[in-house]
């Protein structure tokens, strides 16, 4: 069984976002970048499945600028076998990314595609579901547990009401939740080994996919600031303030 894992390079989750003054976007120069956190869970799950003897090959793929390769390299360092970097110069919408990934799936014929449930930059939560639609494959989103069966997966999904379990026939798309597993760190020897693993580069423009944006970003601005609060000295004072000043209890 072959597993394709899609990873995205995003601003690190610990970075305090700064909005550009001209309203064109957020500051990315000299900002720490890393792999989108739930994409790390997607890689980890694929590696665990391979370690359990249920997968033969893991391919990590990313769509992005030159430096996006770093995320593929990191995936190789924790256990992916080879990488694919689809080069684009602009930021693509999930619809375009899903069309590119469809081309990669057609080329590689994986049985499973894993990715994070949501990217923490645009917070769109679309790509996996869109890829499933393009391929007419079943989708199992927000997975917190995956059980590999003969020709299917049993997936536990985190939903608003609690947990839901579905069974999807393979080939299938799974989008991964942060609670699916605990991503491992790459060891130094594995980081060195990963440098020798192949990463194929493909230009998005060679794939014959329409990647033109459909959505215009008119303005990016800072959210309204909360007015500064106060510290109270005691529980009594807190309750009095909530009752008499804020009038919420």
């Amino acid at each position: 069984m072959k597993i394709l894992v899609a990873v995205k390079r995003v601003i690190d989750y610990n970075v305090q976002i700064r909005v550009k003054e001209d309203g064109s976007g957020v500051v990315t120069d000299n900002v720490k970048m890393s792999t989108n956190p739930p994409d790390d869970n997607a890689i980890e799950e694929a590696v665990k499945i391979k370690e359990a003897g249920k997968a033969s090959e893991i391919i990590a793929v990313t769509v992005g600028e030159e430096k996006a390769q770093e995320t593929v390299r990191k995936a190789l360092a924790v256990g992916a076998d080879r990488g694919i970097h689809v080069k684009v110069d602009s930021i693509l919408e999930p619809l375009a990314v899903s069309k590119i990934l469809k081309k990669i799936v057609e080329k590689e014929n994986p049985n499973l595609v894993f990715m994070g449930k949501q990217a923490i930059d645009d917070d769109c939560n679309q790509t996996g579901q869109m890829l499933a639609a393009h391929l007419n494959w079943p989708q199992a989103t927000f997975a917190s547990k995956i059980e590999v069966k003969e020709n299917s997966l049993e997936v536990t999904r985190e939903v608003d009401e609690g947990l839901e379990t579905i069974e999807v026939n393979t080939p299938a798309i799974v989008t991964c939740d942060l609670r699916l597993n605990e991503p491992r760190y790459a060891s130094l020897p594995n980081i060195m080994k990963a440098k020798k693993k192949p990463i194929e580069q493909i230009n998005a423009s060679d794939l014959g996919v329409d990647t033109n944006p459909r959505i215009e970003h008119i303005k990016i601005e800072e959210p309204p600031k909360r007015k500064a609060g106060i510290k109270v000295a005691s529980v009594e004072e807190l309750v009095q303030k909530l009752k008499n000043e804020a009038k919420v209890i």
Partner: protein
Amino acid sequence: MSVLLIAEHNNKEVKSFTLNAITAASQIDQDLHVLLIGHNADDVAKSLSEVPLVKKVLHMDNEIYENYIAENYTSAILKHADKYSHIVCSANTFGKNLMPRIAALLDISQVSDIIKVIAPDTFLRPIYAGNAFATVKSNDDKKCITIRPTSFEAAETTGGSAEIEKVDAADKTENTKFVNREEIKSDRPELGTARIVISGGRGLQSGENFKLISDVADKLNAAIGASRAAVDAGYITNEHQVGQTGKVVVPDLYIAVGISGAIQHLAGMKESKVIVAINKDGEAPIFSVADYGLEADLFEALPQFLEELNKLNTIQK
């Protein structure tokens, strides 16, 4: 053209977030139709028809819709998509799972999680965990939109009398099977719509200690939330998680207890009207968004808080 809203329900009742989505959808276009896909859900159809903002209910009833499967919903919705300028639903796990599948098959670039309707093609949405707001304009002919329910008031539920039209079922997928759902029943208000939310974090140190939170929640008729750290540590189940990838809440009062205030947690609660933080670390980032901060050991502060509340006896239910 009109707006088609996809209802979320359990064949007995409409889920409350659908009512918030109805408000937003009616701001896009007043000719609002609701598609109800279910099985033996006549009561749901009737209650939707009584929502004054709803102009028509399309009711698709078939046993294949007993449980919500995105693939089955998608083929059902695509049968009707032609007649509508916008297809919308709530941006909770229901709509997030569903809408991109529809959008992709219609070749539409979806606009996720809008918090404001500026024009029928222009919307405000948070990005980077709510640390930036983007004004976006969709240039697709047809739009697929998901709506952040807590950013819109719930629609009135009585007084309307929309027509209910029965429509035929669509194809069923053979590749996805519903197995089961573990729903935790609670008498407390729902986290997403509660007027008061009290949340616990890693500072609680154990699942048993969440009793300190639930005692206060009982007193205030509040919902119980949690940080991701508390859920990861197994103190409480996942449906309580508040944050960027959990639930977004906008209560009148949010009480964060033993929560440091990571960016990802703030994304889920910082629009709350009044925020209280109780934490023994005076430097914790949660204090930067708190209207009232109490630097204290929660194991002393929470029992005292309950005692003070008991003295008040004027708690609104």
